């Protein structure tokens, strides 16, 4: 039977016994574990499915809302205005930090990307209950898709950020560009790792979401965007608390973003000022943090594969 498949006519069923086995060359197909998966690698391999999931989630995230995608501008805008008003105007940061708005917004873009990624990622597996219970597929698909949707929503914010920089007289340099990219990649890896880990934990411990809400509350204040980095060195010097503060990878990422966007809008007649706005070893720290986040991602994948097998029954 060399009956070639013709999907349109369904001609495949005309063949005699052994038809499918021969057509698919099943004799050369090994017996495998139907639940076997290589995790994130498999997600990369099945990009078509991933793209469908991403498209679906983009559609679903603002489903039924009249303003739709507009909310992904309105929410950050309101938050930005709030922070700007409180810290820039009431607390007077606008006077001490040049172009405070960009200092703030450069950080907010990636902080928002991170928190959106892991919050949506956390809910992603529960939200796909029907699929998880009935279909075999790498479950990493769901948190990764959530992260990509958040990435998609970050795009316009980056455009706004660049627009704001240009308006205030941006003079981009290659080092700054590299810094911003490094900062962004750090958050990308961290967001994927957190989304992955949280998505599984949220199924097994339903209280997990509450805990994560608290993390989301704290993150924006734990990084130097509403206040200058200088404030930290003034308070803590380079002592243990400084080390603790800097151990948060989001701090490095935010500083790197500011190095890319904010610094070059301040004009280079104040090198001393700019110097105190960053740790001297910013890039070195950036690479170390990226390495740590990558290790964390590997750990998350490992933990996910351990927890994954319990998800279909726990989700019920």
């Amino acid at each position, binding site marked *: 039977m060399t009956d070639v498949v013709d999907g349109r006519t369904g001609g*495949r*069923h005309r*063949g005699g016994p*052994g038809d499918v086995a021969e057509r698919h060359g*099943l004799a050369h197909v090994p*017996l*495998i574990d139907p639940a076997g998966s290589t995790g994130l690698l498999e997600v990369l391999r099945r990009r*078509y499915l991933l793209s469908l999931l991403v498209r*679906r989630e983009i559609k679903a995230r603002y489903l039924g809302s009249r303003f739709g995608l507009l909310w992904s501008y309105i929410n950050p805008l309101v938050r930005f205005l709030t922070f700007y008003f409180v810290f820039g105007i009431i607390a007077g940061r606008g006077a001490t930090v040049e172009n405070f708005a960009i200092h703030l917004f450069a950080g907010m873009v990636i902080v928002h990307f991170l928190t959106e990624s892991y919050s949506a990622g956390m809910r992603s597996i529960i939200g796909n209950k029907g699929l998880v219970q009935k279909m*075999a597929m790498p479950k990493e698909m769901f948190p990764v898709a959530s992260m990509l949707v958040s990435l998609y929503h970050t795009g316009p914010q980056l455009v706004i950020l660049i627009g704001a920089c240009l308006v205030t007289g941006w003079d981009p340099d290659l080092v700054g560009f590299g810094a911003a990219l490094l900062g962004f990649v750090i958050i990308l890896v961290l967001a994927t790792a957190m989304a992955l880990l949280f998505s599984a934990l949220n199924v097994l411990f339903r209280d997990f979401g509450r805990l994560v809400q608290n993390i989301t509350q704290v993150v924006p204040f734990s990084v130097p965007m509403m206040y200058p980095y200088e404030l930290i060195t003034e308070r803590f010097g380079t002592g243990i608390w400084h080390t603790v503060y800097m151990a948060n990878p989001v701090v490095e990422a935010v500083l790197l973003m500011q190095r890319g966007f904010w610094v070059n809008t301040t004009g280079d007649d104040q090198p001393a000022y700019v110097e105190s706005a960053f740790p001297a070893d910013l890039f070195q720290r950036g690479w170390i943090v990226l390495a740590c986040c990558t290790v964390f991602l590997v750990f998350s994948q490992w933990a996910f594969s351990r927890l994954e097998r319990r998800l279909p029954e726990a989700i019920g």
Partner: protein
Amino acid sequence: MSVATATRTGLESIVVDHVSKEFRLQYHRTLKQMAVAKSRKQKISDRFLAVDDVSFAVQQGESIGLMGLNGSGKSTLLRMVNGSMVPDRGSVRTRGRISGLIATGAGFHNQLTGRENIYMNAAILGMSRQQTDARFEEIVEFADVGRFLDTPVGVYSSGMYSRLGFAVAVHVDCDVFIADEVLAVGDKPFKKKCLAKMEEVRRSGVTLFYVSHAAGSVKKMCDRVLVLEKGRLVFDGDVQEGIDLLEYDGDDGDEENDDEVLGADI
């Protein structure tokens, strides 16, 4: 009509080896409730084996009827065969692409339209965009949901929902087809169409795993029956014997009556 000559190729299609699946029944939700229960020496949770040390092997092209009372573990076993669940003990091995439906419905997304769900479902089952495009017309024609194709499946009737699910699953170019109570909510014409289609799939040499409470359709479709009882495999063999064991036949005996075949179930 029913051809008992399995189109065997001597190739193992599914090998289930001492497989067990344990579920936990949690009686209490909060820590407080658990503490209270503990202090009263009540059980907080219970474990039971939904599938208990089941072993069997299926040759490519065989069609197997899986029977058993409600809650006997049929869907759980099939979940492990299609890979959506992992056994706690033992191993499952399969050859080739698996398609089908578990516990009546497909994994659809209620906010997505019928069209989008077709693509999504086919993609999960391993079909590319081109492959789905090539079969799209056929799937739509089979599902026959008319102008509801472009409305969210959330508004479908349960029959329409299962038609679409079956239509996608059956048009995936698979090697193993799992049909878990696919006929449960379909109307009579659709049931006829499904049975005819499955017969076609079966004749093309696809391994068929068929779950139904309708003895007649099992008789018609299958050349071997497995019977589960509280998770244990209590019978593996001849179709009629298996059905007799479950006493599903009732008074009708061997009469090939239409209602029985089409599953005027239970």
